């Protein structure tokens, strides 16, 4: 059975309850476990078989020490990373990495690209602890500089994937009521609405809102004890409804056919089981790759592949042994078919009780908070008021003290952290610049306006007014304006035809290559105009229409547009000056505007 725990901060006590239920009623049932943040810690402790009482005590102590400060866990003297580090070093056995390698799946979020990474192989105990610390690092809550694991910076896995999938069918555990396999039932208002936060179903209920608010700001130990019990009960209910509670005889083996993964019966399931066992070795790399959703990022993790290859041989042997064991099992080894197990499922449910060491730890913690004169004063209303009133005086000293302490501790890492920070800054600046470069779009508007007035002047005048304007700049010249006045004089009297041609074109390019840069473009236009005014190319054929040009798919070629416009003008020029018998006057106006945005 594979299980995955949701990250949930101090509500991790719920996972302790779930874990103790498995430890008491169905040990050896869990094959692989995954999780993010507090869930990863719970999964690791569960696989290592750590003392439940000790874990409960640690969690509650952390919670009480977080509560004892005026600003709670935000108080500068409360260093959650240090607390976790000390706790893990003490709790985990020396060979923890060997026990959990390939079985524990820790969800991490890479800082550089916010991708989710699932790590499942650990070379040493420190390596494992570092991975867990990274997974439990809540940005800005735990600190500013994220910790690094194997040279890469990671933060809380709960940001990208709060319930990492261990295999196809994974039992999900979440302290928030929703659609997880093991979660508190919802008896609250408005459970109709649900949300999904990084893969975790959460119903929008009042109690879930309360739980969310308490994830990082721990509640009273009494409430935590209740949550622990809730976890135990929910896990038991799950085991019971799925017939996973073995009897005393089968507790040690923990083999079940009715695991969610395998629904078949008889020999078939046995055969499949064998292949299931084989899978871990051959699929380990693959699974990790599946977890690692960013194929590029894998290159970093692949440094470990060498070690894996070495370890592979050892694992092969292990698997061969395991395979033999699985194959030799008879159907009576599976507790599904054991009558005692079935009875056990029914009996156990009547008396759900947490293991004694957990109960002791919970009670001790509750007592500690409420006993003694100091605690009494501390918990009274006056105490609260005094505490809050003293914040402005105490805080500066506390901050100064803890900052100095942290700085001293941080000093050895200063160069690397500083380097990381600077390189990050440079990358960010580069990114901004590249964005600016990318967004530099060229917008060009090309418009051509052509008004033609064709008129007839009586023959005796024998005078042809011809005014040709090729572009707007020339229009502004004074002598031309005079010429225009002469031309428009008779035109006003004998108008035959009035023609207006107009076409305009907008085009935008986001990736200008060298030749299309603004100065280049402007230079070309001026060149083109120069050429045109010097050597008017006359083409008597049909003028190319604008439609043709657009349909040909070449509208993005600026040069082509200019060329076509020029040809059109040339043709008109030719038509009215050389061929037509009537007096013609045309006024061409073409403009090119280029904006850089």
């Amino acid at each position, binding site marked *: 059975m594979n299980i995955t725990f949701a990250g949930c901060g101090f509500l991790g006590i719920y996972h302790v309850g779930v874990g103790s239920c498995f430890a008491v009623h169905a040990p050896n049932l869990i094959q692989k476990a995954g999780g993010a943040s507090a869930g990863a810690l719970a999964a690791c402790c569960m696989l290592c078989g750590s003392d439940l009482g000790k874990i409960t005590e640690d969690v509650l102590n952390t919670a009480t020490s977080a509560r004892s400060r005026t600003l709670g866990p935000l108080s500068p003297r409360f260093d959650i990373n240090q607390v976790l580090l000390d706790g893990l070093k003490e709790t985990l056995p020396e060979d923890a990495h060997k026990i959990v390698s390939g079985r524990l799946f820790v969800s991490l979020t890479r800082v550089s690209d916010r991708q989710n990474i699932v790590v499942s192989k650990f070379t040493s105990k420190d390596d494992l602890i570092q991975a867990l610390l990274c997974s439990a690092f809540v940005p800005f809550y735990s600190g500013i500089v994220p910790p690094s694991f194997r040279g890469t910076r990671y933060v809380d896995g709960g940001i990208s994937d709060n319930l990492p999938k261990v295999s196809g069918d994974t039992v999900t555990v979440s302290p928030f009521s929703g*659609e997880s396999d093991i979660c508190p039932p919802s*008896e609250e208002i408005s459970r*109709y*609405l649900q949300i999904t936060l990084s893969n975790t179903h959460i119903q929008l209920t009042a109690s879930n809102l*309360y739980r969310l608010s308490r994830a990082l700001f721990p509640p009273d130990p009494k409430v935590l004890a209740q949550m622990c019990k809730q976890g135990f009960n929910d896990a038991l209910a799950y085991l019971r409804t799925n017939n996973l509670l073995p009897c005393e005889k089968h507790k040690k083996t923990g083999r079940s056919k009715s695991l969610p993964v395998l629904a078949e019966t008889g020999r078939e399931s046995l055969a499949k089981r064998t292949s299931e066992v084989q899978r871990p070795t051959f699929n380990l790399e693959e699974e990790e790759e599946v977890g690692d959703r960013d194929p590029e990022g894998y290159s970093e993790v692949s440094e470990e592949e060498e070690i894996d290859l070495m370890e592979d041989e050892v694992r092969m042997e292990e698997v061969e042994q395991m395979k033999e064991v699985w194959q030799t099992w008879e159907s009576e080894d599976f507790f599904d078919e054991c009558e005692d197990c079935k009875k056990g499922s029914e009996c156990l449910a009547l008396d759900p009780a947490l293991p004694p060491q957990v109960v002791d730890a919970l009670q001790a913690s509750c007592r500690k908070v409420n006993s003694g004169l100091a605690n009494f004063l501390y918990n009274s209303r006056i105490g609260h008021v005094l505490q809050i009133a003293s914040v402005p005086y105490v805080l500066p000293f506390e901050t100064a003290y803890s900052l100095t302490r942290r700085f001293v501790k941080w000093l050895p890492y200063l160069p690397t952290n500083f380097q990381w920070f600077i390189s990050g800054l440079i990358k960010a600046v580069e990114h901004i610049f590249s964005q600016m470069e990318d967004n530099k779009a060229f917008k060009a508007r090309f418009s051509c306006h052509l008004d033609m007035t064709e008129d007839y002047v009586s023959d005796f005048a024998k005078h042809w007014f011809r005014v040709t304007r090729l572009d707007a700049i020339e229009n502004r010249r004074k002598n031309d304006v005079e010429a225009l006045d002469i031309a428009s004089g008779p035109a006003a009297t004998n108008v035959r035809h009035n023609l207006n041609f107009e076409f305009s074109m907008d085009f935008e390019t986001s990736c200008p290559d060298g030749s299309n840069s603004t100065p280049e473009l402007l230079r070309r236009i001026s060149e083109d105009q120069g050429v045109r005014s010097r050597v008017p190319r006359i083409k008597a054929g049909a003028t190319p229409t604008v439609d043709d040009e657009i349909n040909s798919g070449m509208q993005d070629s600026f040069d082509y547009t200019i060329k076509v416009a020029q040809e059109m003008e040339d043709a008109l020029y030719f038509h009215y000056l050389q061929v037509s018998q009537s007096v013609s006057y045309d006024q061409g106006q073409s403009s090119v505007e280029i904006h850089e945005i």
Partner: protein
Amino acid sequence: MSEALLDTNRSLEEPDRGWGSIWRPTSKRLLAKAEKKILQALDIPYSGEYVKVNDRDEIWTVKINPTNSKKTPLVLMHGFGAGLAFWVLNFKALSHNRPVYAIDTLGFGRSSRRTLPFDAEKAEEAFVECIDGWRKSMKIDKMILLGHSFGGYLAFAYGLRHPDKLKHLILADPWGFPNEPEERDKLQRQLPFWVRGVAMLAMAFNPLSGIRALGPFGPFVVRKIRGDIQYKFRDLFDDDRIMNYIYHCNAQQPASGETAFKSMSSFGAWAQQPMLDRIHLLDPIVPLDMIYGTKTWMDLTIGEKVFNIRKDSWVKTHFIKGAGHHVYADKAEEFNSVINKICHDIN
């Protein structure tokens, strides 16, 4: 593949009133587009039309395989906050040898959104009579009614009033069956004051009014908080078109269906008039099948309770392993085969 978009221009062009329409990036046309984009993923022909049920209301209906009229038609009713396109994974398999009609419930999706009475009983009646009006307009004599969640509640309410029109009643993860537990008040009193305050404040508004209030940020938020729905439909399309559809379904004003749902529910979780109290009123001739996902947050013992009450008639509960509340999408194949088997056994 014909989509009767053109026939429905009249309804589409009704303007959205108020300043809210500027703030929210939605319109009937956008909803129609979003729906079309989902249904296009089907590789079977379908047609959609507005069916006039009375002088005020029109129900948006999608028909699949309507020519095969010899068999009893299957009518699909979606749940709260959804629309008929949510059945996209089921259309093909279910319409294999019978006509399938999917409707947008009154006040939801693309159907009319007139103001419904703010009273549990009257609102329920309005919904039921609307379904019956639709049935008459469609000239259906008997039908198999399949409702999910809130649609399941309405389907059951329909069965209570018009049992002779139902060949079979199928409820998928229906809402509104259990009674309100007595200890709810006690549980709530344990919570801190501010949490209760926030909850009460939230209760004062329509359930999804937050999405509408967010305006231009609405689509983004919907995508963020219900990413799991997109994952459910990954086999058919790998983009966020379903999220877009959800947004447009629920961002439309007036949200009359939502208001009616609010009036019929008590604290959003239980029905004002729970169906468990009214099961004995259902005519024994109506066969009833219930389908639950094992991971759902609904009470899984309801099937057994119904079975115990309706001793003389057909009641069967199916559990689909690994499926959540959206059982028809989580395990679409299993769901379709269960429904097809039920339908097959009837004829």
